[in-house]
């Protein structure tokens, strides 16, 4: 198992390198002087020279690339073109926000999707099952930003039960931390619950139809044990795959949701970086998200390895 993890992790390195390189060369696509691009047309030549000098933008692209790579190896993601702040520090304050959001949403989607999936699988063909299936199709089509705005209107403006915007750190007040995340997590989780539900439903249903469940049924073993020990265990691998796939989508969704709820996460950093033409910040965020996707995929691979009986030796 350990060797599989190592091999997979090693395989991810070239992947990240490709993403990082692409992100770096993004700045080479700027037409003309990057400094003019950042500072605008009203800037003076002296201002532009100062920026060029501070960030070494006059050097050849390869030169710049190699030095940023060297910096990256020592953990330095560069500095913001606008504020000169360290991108690493900027992102490390934003990361916990996005991480909280993503982890909570993953837990919610996995739990709700799987629970509903088992429930529907046990009632296949019933009216509840059909309604749930239609609902799953419908929620998948709802964009998270639309539902986020709707939630703000309903719970923060109309009924004033939850804060509309802002973030409270976990170590400041766990209660308020949770409160500040309830609406964003709902907005993020709603759409992915659909596909996870559908996958869980069909995987559990398939397992319940399998011969091995009939074998335990033929022994008079209670339904609950049939479903939980044999049905769910055999359906686990496809469910984990679906959860992982949707977690990747959910990571992307944090950009808009953080914006709406005014959460100081990576997505907000990305947007302000984009609007301020602050290329190093944008590059940094892209790299962090890429690492996030790689970690999710790695976790899914390893979990599947553990869950798939044929991968294990007796």
């Amino acid at each position, binding site marked *: 198992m350990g060797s599989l993890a190592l091999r997979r992790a090693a395989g991810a390195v070239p992947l*990240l390198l*490709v*993403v990082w390189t692409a*992100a770096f060369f*993004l*700045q080479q*696509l700027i037409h003309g002087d990057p400094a003019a691009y950042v500072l605008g047309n009203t800037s003076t030549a002296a201002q532009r020279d100062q920026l060029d000098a501070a960030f070494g933008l006059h050097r050849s692209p390869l030169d710049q690339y190699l030095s940023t790579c060297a910096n990256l190896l020592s953990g330095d993601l560069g500095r913001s073109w606008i504020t000169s702040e360290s991108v690493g520090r900027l992102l490390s304050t934003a990361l916990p926000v996005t991480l909280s959001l993503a982890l909570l949403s993953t837990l919610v989607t996995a739990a709700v999707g799987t629970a509903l999936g088992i429930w529907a699988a046990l009632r*296949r*063909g*019933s009216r509840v099952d059909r309604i749930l299936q239609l609902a799953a*199709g*419908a929620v998948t*089509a*709802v*964009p*998270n*930003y*639309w539902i986020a*705005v*709707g939630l*703000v*209107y309903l719970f923060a*403006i109309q009924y004033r039960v939850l804060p509309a915007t802002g973030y409270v750190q976990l170590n400041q007040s766990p209660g308020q931390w949770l409160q500040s995340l309830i609406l964003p997590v709902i907005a993020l989780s709603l759409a992915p619950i659909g596909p996870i539900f559908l996958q869980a439903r069909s995987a559990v249903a398939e397992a319940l139809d*399998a*011969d*091995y*469940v*009939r*074998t*335990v*049924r*033929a*022994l*008079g*073993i209670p339904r609950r044990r049939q479903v939980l020990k*044999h049905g769910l*265990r*055999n359906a686990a691998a496809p469910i984990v795959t679906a959860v992982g796939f949707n977690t*990747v989508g959910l990571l*992307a969704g944090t*950009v*808009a949701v953080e*914006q709406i709820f005014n959460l100081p996460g990576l997505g907000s950093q*990305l*947007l302000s970086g*984009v609007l301020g*033409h*602050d*290329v190093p910040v*944008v590059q940094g*965020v*892209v790299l962090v998200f*890429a690492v996030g*996707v*790689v970690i999710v*995929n790695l976790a899914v691979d390893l979990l599947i390895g553990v869950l798939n*009986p*044929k991968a*294990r030796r*007796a």
Partner: protein
Amino acid sequence: MSTVVHHADSPVGPAARAGRALATSPLTLTAVAWLVLVVLTSVFADQLAPFDPLTQNLTELLKPPSATHWLGTDSLGRDVLSRLMHGGDTLLWGAAEATAIAVALGLPAGLLSGYRGGIADAVISWLVDLTFAVPAFVVLVALAVIYPQNTAVMMAVLGVLGAGAATRLVRNSTRTVRDELFIDAARVSGLPLRTILFRHVLPTVVAPVIMLAATSMAICVIVLSSLSFLGLGGSPEAPSWGQMIYEASQNITVDSWLLVPPGAVLILTVIAFNLIANTVRDALPGGPTPRPVRHRRTVLAETAAQRPDADPQTLLGVHGLVVEFPSGPVVDGVTFAVRKGEILGLVGESGSGKTVTALAIPGLLPIDERITAGSVRFAGEELAGTTERRLSRVRGRGVAYIAQEPMAALDPCYTVGNQLRAALRHFGATRRAAAARTGDLLREVGISDPDRVMRCRPHQISGGIAQRVAIALALTGDPALLIADEPTTALDVTVQAAILDLFRNVVATGERALVLVSHDIGVVADVCDRVAVMYAGQIVEQGETDSVLGAPRHPYTRALLRSMPSLDTAGRLPVIPGSVPAPDAWPEGCRFAARCALATDACKKGPIPLMDVSGPSPRTTRCVRGHDLAPEPGR
């Protein structure tokens, strides 16, 4: 000599089937109609829209829907309906662009990777993995730092990243087809690669690609609208649905209505694409089979249920059993009894109803099959139509079931030892006793190295060992009756012999009985004391095995025995013409009459009852000429 089986709808290729599924589902038709409407209004927005989408009217700010402004006006007094009609244009074009790029790249790459395999497959798969590791939406947002509001570039990038999913899908479908025997047959016919790809592979890939394209449209519409919500996609001048939602969010404290029209149009459009994708997917081979129909439990006629058990030695009495599928009956009035210490064979070809009969006894029928008439009495208790709770008390302890595929019958996730111990614990053994008994049980079923087998998962043992384990599992509750459904069909003949010996031992105590379902008359001759021959849902002949096989009193039994090839002779075999009728084609009279050499008009008049033709031992046959079939001399 053969007749063509006519089917209601003549089957066609997967693509055509998907097309037909689209055209016949009302929901999907609505979805298609909605998309046509959206596309047409977008294309002809200039002509159709009642107002200019950009004209501000400061006297008509945030008006609710009215006769002039059907969907009201926004914070600058612009007509919402007109903005909606103009707002789909860039969105749909952008989504189509990305989808077209994804398919154009993914289709050839997937075909190459799937059919050729090898290095091409390895390289392409690595590239596909790469696209899956890229946080696509974040990259699109990041692109805006260089190309603000440039939808075309963003969609091109999205298309390239989406090509990964398209490639994987096409590759996997191609792989599946490549392993089909008809591809092998085409290769053996000497068809060139080009012809095989275009004629046999491509058509099966079309439907999955349509499904993927529809899904991709749905995703791209959401992504693109998200970008314009964030102010990054498309020109800020031109109206778009995402941007309208953004404007609504800015006015949410004043007027929440504005959130509704763009949201509804957007969501409906995405749902429409998803519906089309689902319809195509369900029409694909391997898609979900028609929804199972749920039956209520049957209340059966009391007459059969209250019949007293004639013989105290009778363990199981099945009387007039009828099992129906949603399409109609498949087991039609089956009656037999099993005594303690006896092995009864249920023998027949596919479609005879033997397996369904076996499953019906312990109430293990699939969800859409049910007992609609008759009685199943086991040890004085009626099992037909009873509750799952009462059945589960009888199962395992009273009646145990052994399936045909031993590998599939054992849970792949748990070791053999775990499954046996769990069953023993269920039957009341302590943890310690269960652990001890597991080894003994495995030894009882003839496994010489129980400790090793116990630690194995099902895929680590051979089929023969797996069937021994399955038998051990069935014995954990010390049942009085074993029902074994084709227990040796999946096994090699040398292993079969050993398993049959094991069954003989299991029943040898005299307290246990076995119902053995088989299509193999040789197996029946080897272990069964009595045999019931089934044909088209009925028992056609029943009696002691040596007399039934030695001197059959039903033409079907006789013809079947004659058509068996033997180890001692070669040459042409006497055959039964035609094939077994399907349940919906059962004739009213004798169901074998159409294939029978002895058939007369009397055979076709009406249902043939079972006739008693007992000699020294009890014997029944469902043939009006049963008495004419004199025992063959010399047998």
